């Protein structure tokens, strides 16, 4: 289990960030998911862990959405002004970019900046996908679960998984092309 958690933790964090758009909340979700997996399913075969872990993650993310809706309702009722999420906040990518020494790629700063911007745009478009399409796409193509496993994690039919994946890839292809990204 240690090797599995070590291998999945960074991807899980990024997937949670795509879903909830907040780093601290994403860390809490991943932490809770790891703890639940270990406490409840620590004796399961290794092959079952990816499916179990992502099911726990999806449930935690849905719980977060429900709490946000309730919180949003109270905020609307109590105040006429809702604070913005701030996800349109601009920041200088040079502040967060890894240096050539750190990345070990030996690329020029211009190339690194371009790559950084491409990765950011891809992540933004993943974030903007409808939740079910994003879940299906990430589980199928990033976690590399098969259709059956993805359906079990998402609690839907295999046909729905294929539909969500197809729509997600079409949407990503269109939006990335519109933003000048060629993969």
């Amino acid at each position: 289990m240690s090797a599995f958690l070590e291998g999945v933790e960074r991807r899980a964090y990024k997937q949670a960030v795509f879903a909830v758009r907040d780093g601290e909340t994403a860390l809490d979700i991943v932490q809770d998911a790891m703890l639940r997996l270990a406490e409840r399913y620590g004796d399961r075969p290794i092959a079952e862990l990816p499916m179990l872990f992502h099911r726990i993650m999806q449930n935690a993310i849905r719980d977060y959405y429900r709490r946000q809706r309730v919180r949003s309702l109270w905020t609307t009722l109590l105040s006429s002004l809702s604070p913005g999420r701030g996800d349109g906040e601009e920041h200088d990518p040079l502040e967060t970019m890894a240096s050539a020494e750190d990345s070990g790629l030996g690329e020029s700063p211009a190339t690194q900046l371009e790559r950084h911007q491409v990765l950011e745009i891809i992540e933004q478009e993943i974030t903007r996908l409808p939740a079910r399409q994003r879940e299906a796409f990430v589980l199928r193509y990033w976690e590399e679960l098969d259709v059956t496993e993805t359906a079990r994690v998402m609690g839907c039919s295999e046909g729905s998984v294929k539909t969500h994946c197809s729509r997600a890839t079409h949407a990503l292809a269109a939006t990335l092309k519109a933003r000048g990204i060629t993969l």
Partner: protein
Amino acid sequence: MNEQQLGNKIRQALSEGARGERVGAQVLARLRAAREQALAHKKSERVPAMAWAGDIAGRFGGLGGLSFRVLLPIVVLIIGLAAIYAWERNQRVAEVEEIDAQLLTDDLPIDAYLDKGFEAWLKKRGSR
């Protein structure tokens, strides 16, 4: 580019975005701490000696609401106690039998013949 090819390309990009240096040292430290905490609370694997009992429990679904994991040790204990009781009883019987056999086969000590009560008993038995 078909769906699979696009998915693969985006996977590569997402994996690059999840590399340690992009995620940040602080996040990596938090993730490591979360992982260690989870492993410290990990549910232990089933004890091999009882694993087959768990399989039986799964097949028969337990008895009277109790799983075989609870029932089996109790049954083994009861059988063991019964076996110990039977053995001890047999031992006592064997000891008594041995004493009786010795009494019946060994020669009487000479003092028995001097006992008046024994002489009277012998006469009484002989007159029947």
